[in-house]
């Protein structure tokens, strides 16, 4: 019988999320292939280079991408209900997290915007839903683009399933949706992980 289920355990009841490790090491592999340069992995046109790095626009685009990755529905929370954008801001601001992770997420926005302006002459956040989906399908065909979306999903799942003390999963909306039962005692503002 074929194995249908993914093996999310690493064995020995030591719970490492191997998928996080695989996402990151895949990225490092891609970067190495690009000579270690994010600029080569996700190249930008000259005009994009001139206007990149605008934080407001970057977060607007990231929010729009999250809404396509995890759309709101009547009976199921989407990125918006999960506070996923604020959660991602907290992740990106955490200096304890790998600096490369942060650069990769933000560079990806400029790269996506560059492509979008080339095709549609407007920002990703101003496109129709159908146009946005088409662009995401297009970038997912490249290894770098697929890895970028996979990274955003990774933090979306943290916003969906981590304790509300971290800002995602407000009122346990993600846990309720998937019938997940948390353990007690729950983390408090005092003993939770603190970003650096």
């Amino acid at each position: 019988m074929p194995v249908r289920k993914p093996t999310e355990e690493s064995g020995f009841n030591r719970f490492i999320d191997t998928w996080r490790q695989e996402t990151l090491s895949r990225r490092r592999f891609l970067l190495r292939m690009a000579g270690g340069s994010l600029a080569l992995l996700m190249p930008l046109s000259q005009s994009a280079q001139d206007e990149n790095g605008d934080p407001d626009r970057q977060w607007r685009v990231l929010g729009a991408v999250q809404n396509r990755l995890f759309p709101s529905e009547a009976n199921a929370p989407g990125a918006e209900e999960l506070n996923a954008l604020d959660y991602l801001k907290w992740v990106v601001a955490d200096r304890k997290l790998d600096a490369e992770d942060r650069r990769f997420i933000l560079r990806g926005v400029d790269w996506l915007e560059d492509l979008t302006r080339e095709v549609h002459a407007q920002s990703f956040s101003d496109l129709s839903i159908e146009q946005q989906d088409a662009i995401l399908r297009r970038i997912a065909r490249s290894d770098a683009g697929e890895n970028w979306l996979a990274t955003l999903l990774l933090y979306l799942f943290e916003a969906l399933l981590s304790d509300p003390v971290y800002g995602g999963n407000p009122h346990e909306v993600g846990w309720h949706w998937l019938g997940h039962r948390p353990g007690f005692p729950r983390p408090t503002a005092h003993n939770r992980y603190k970003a650096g």
Partner: protein
Amino acid sequence: MENEFDVCVIGSGAGGGPVVWSLTQAGYSVVVLEKGPWFKQTDFSKDELACCRRSHYTPNLRDEQHVLEERDGDQGWKGVPTAVSQRDFWNGNMVGGSSNLMSGYFHRLKPQDFRLLSEFGPIEGANLVDWPIGYTDLEPYYTLVERVVGVSGKVRPHPQAEPRSTPDFPYPPTAEHPISAWIDQTCGKLGLHPLRVPRAILPRPDMGRGACSYSGYCGSYGCSTNAKGSSRAALIEPSLITGRCDLRPHAKVYRLRSDAKGRVVQADYFDTQGMSRSVSARIFVVACQAIESARLLLASPGTAHPDGLGNRHGQVGRNLVFSAGGSGSGYFTYAKLSPEKAAQVRVLGPFVNRALQDWYTIEDPVFAKGPAKGGTVDFLFSHPNPIPLANALRWEKDKLIWGKPLKRKLEKWFSEDRKLLFEVFNDWLPTDDCFVGLDPNINDKWGSPVARVRLGAHPHDLKVGRYLAGQGEKVLRAMGLDWVSSSVNASPPPNLVAGGCRFGNDPKDSVLDPDCRVWGADNLFVSDASFMPTGGSVPYTWTIYANAFRVADKIKRQLG
């Protein structure tokens, strides 16, 4: 100069705790130098992000890392720093060490584990030796651990059971999951003898510690009731009450200084502010977990130890072992069960507590001509952490999916079934391809070379692991589970590590004497899992605790 303390213990985990407890109880003064912070009972919660997704209990890999060497084609070995690979090899740096995060599956070794070479004969490419002590030397200390650390269980007659000096455990078993009885029924039909797995978990309050609250979140998490017998809750914190224990968290020992006679005179460490400090004592005990203990000895050369403490014959760091094996699984599909049975499977909290050791020694002509060393198959439910499951669901045939299709998949997979696992534990044979050295290029944040670890495994380990996994699969199939499969590989679990400073009767092929005293440094002991020449086929913690209590008795005798 007057020594400040009778004993200086470096590391407060399962290897250090028993020494600290025994010596402070006996009236000696002990200083404990622990690299990590002191998390107390109220600092622990069921926080997936803290326990399992951020470096909350372990160092940031930019500050402290390892270099892991793996085979690179047929040619040689390639080392990759873990800050690059993100393959975190730390296990819990805090007061009490990784015993705070263990699941507490407690198994004793069996008499044959102490004499693998003479019982089963040599295996080509494996550095097999008999231990310099036997099971009867350690048995009283296993019994002591049951009482002092608190081990719960119930003895069941078993064809491969190890002898014990008391009739039963001091604490009754922890509450058991409904499916434990199903495992018993199935195994009965198959002619197998399931054990009730002893746990280092208190089922009722005792010794100033609370009872288990059956939160369902145990392994990888710190215990919020102190029911789990971590070195912190069971040994270190109780030692403080004596007034003879000086516990110093955030104290990173980087060097042991020795005199011309080879004796250790001083431990040098960095405090929270990065200031170098030192401490003197009559006796020093190293218990930093196998890899870091070997690293500290190698980083501490002296006049009488030019290549590192106890390394006159180049043995320090060699014969590192892990636990070989792997895991298997099957699924209870709720829709296929009666409503009552489905409700039983959904129960969260109580433990499965079942293991099979029918093949601890394999007597099967299909496997080998004569008796061969086998191992343990342990049953448990899939870890309840939800984020890794969601992460795995992002992929469909290696392609990323998102949007509504992903959401429908999440709904289905979070609700339709529950995964029962088994874990296989068998010997990781010691070889010349598994050892610890110092990396020539990469330093930690204090400027000391990090450990460089070669991770070669012996092919025989996989053969045994696959045999045991096959037996585990048979049980899951007989229980009627869906999608039964298993995976055995040579990837070492970082939390099940031992060896590197093995004990023996000859200084030429060991680092420690039979008392776990470093050859050539007669006031230096190593009391963590480093001493083990072979690892046995069970998790190590009970044996580490037991041996550290034994070492404490040797130290007491030496202090007089």
